[in-house]
């Protein structure tokens, strides 16, 4: 974990709560370590707890019957895992996997639902966050269909860096292929382009961001569209 847990400063949804609301919820919040590769929800699995990440990054992954999978959403300090519970959903529609480990807080889903029904500050924050997540998911669908693997890799690295707030990203080629829904050879060739431009250094499962501005110039519009919506609605 990055440091001693200070939930209100680390997770944006919690940080935005008025002191009174946070006080009411704080006794229900438990610190948890989110470990690399940890599955928080299986597809179709129960969502007993919801999670508020700190500097970790968690992927929402769609798995297909042929064994392939692709990432359909990313969650970090700006949001939470299990937000669909407030929409009345009690089974996770997709797999939820920790990609960048760090700490977070968890809370029983029933407590979150109860708080949501109060129609207080968290209710409004969650509605805005759901809108942001919807936009992110739809934009990623368009991106995965229309943009080059190099642009998508750049977009994905930027989104990851935003969430872990770090320059060194622990991503193997196999993992990147799975997340981006492309073949390993495609990841290699896309990474070569970004490396040749000196935007990143990629070696043995470690990606180091060298030139963030360069990556932003290189990537497709999807990164900026999602980021701007986040800034407008949530930040």
């Amino acid at each position, binding site marked *: 974990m990055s440091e001693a847990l200070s939930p209100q400063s680390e997770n944006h949804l919690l940080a935005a709560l008025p002191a009174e609301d946070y006080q009411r919820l704080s006794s229900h919040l438990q610190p948890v370590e989110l470990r690399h590769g940890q599955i928080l929800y299986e597809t179709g699995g129960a969502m007993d707890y919801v999670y508020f990440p700190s500097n970790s990054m968690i992927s929402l992954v769609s798995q297909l019957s042929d064994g392939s999978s692709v990432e359909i959403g990313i969650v970090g300090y700006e949001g939470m895992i299990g937000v669909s519970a407030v929409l009345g959903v009690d089974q996770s529609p997709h797999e939820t996997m920790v990609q960048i480990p760090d700490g977070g807080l968890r809370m029983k889903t029933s407590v979150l639902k109860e708080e949501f029904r109060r129609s207080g500050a968290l209710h409004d924050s969650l509605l805005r966050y759901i809108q942001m997540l919807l936009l992110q998911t739809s934009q990623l669908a368009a991106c995965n269909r229309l943009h080059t693997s190099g642009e998508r890799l750049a977009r994905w690295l930027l989104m990851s860096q935003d969430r872990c707030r770090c320059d060194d990203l622990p991503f193997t080629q196999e993992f990147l292929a799975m997340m981006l829904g492309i073949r*390993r050879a495609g990841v290699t060739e896309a990474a070569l382009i970004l490396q040749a431009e000196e935007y990143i250094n990629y070696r043995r499962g470690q990606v180091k961001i060298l030139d963030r501005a360069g990556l932003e110039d290189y990537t497709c519009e999807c990164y900026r569209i999602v980021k701007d919506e986040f800034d407008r609605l949530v930040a």
Partner: protein
Amino acid sequence: MSQEHERPATIFLVEEDDETRPILKNNLQGYGYRVLVALDEEDALERVHGGRIQADLFLVDTVGVSLEDALNAGRGIREHAKYDSHTPLVVMAEKYGADLEGTDVNVSGNDWITYLEDPGQLKNLLARLINQLSIQDASQEI
């Protein structure tokens, strides 16, 4: 690439994945190779039929088949192109464990399976194999 080649070395690329094909071709050309591209095994066999193409190396990336089948497909294409097993054949693996990552395995003759990990791995392997070919050619001329 070896400076001993008077012409750029030619790679015959069989890349079945539509997304990987253009970026791989572009990168190979960026290394200075001439690249001939086939969409799949059938297309490759048609293109090389009767020894119509000149190639220094065959590079194969197939989708949804075992490594053994991919190797056999590559060997068949090479043979159909009237090249023998001295001409390098490289097959790119897709599914493999961490223990194989970063390795290039010589399975027989000049047939290789590359288990990619780093961006520069394929580039280095191709350069090495083509350079060896140049040295062999030069020694045969002597």
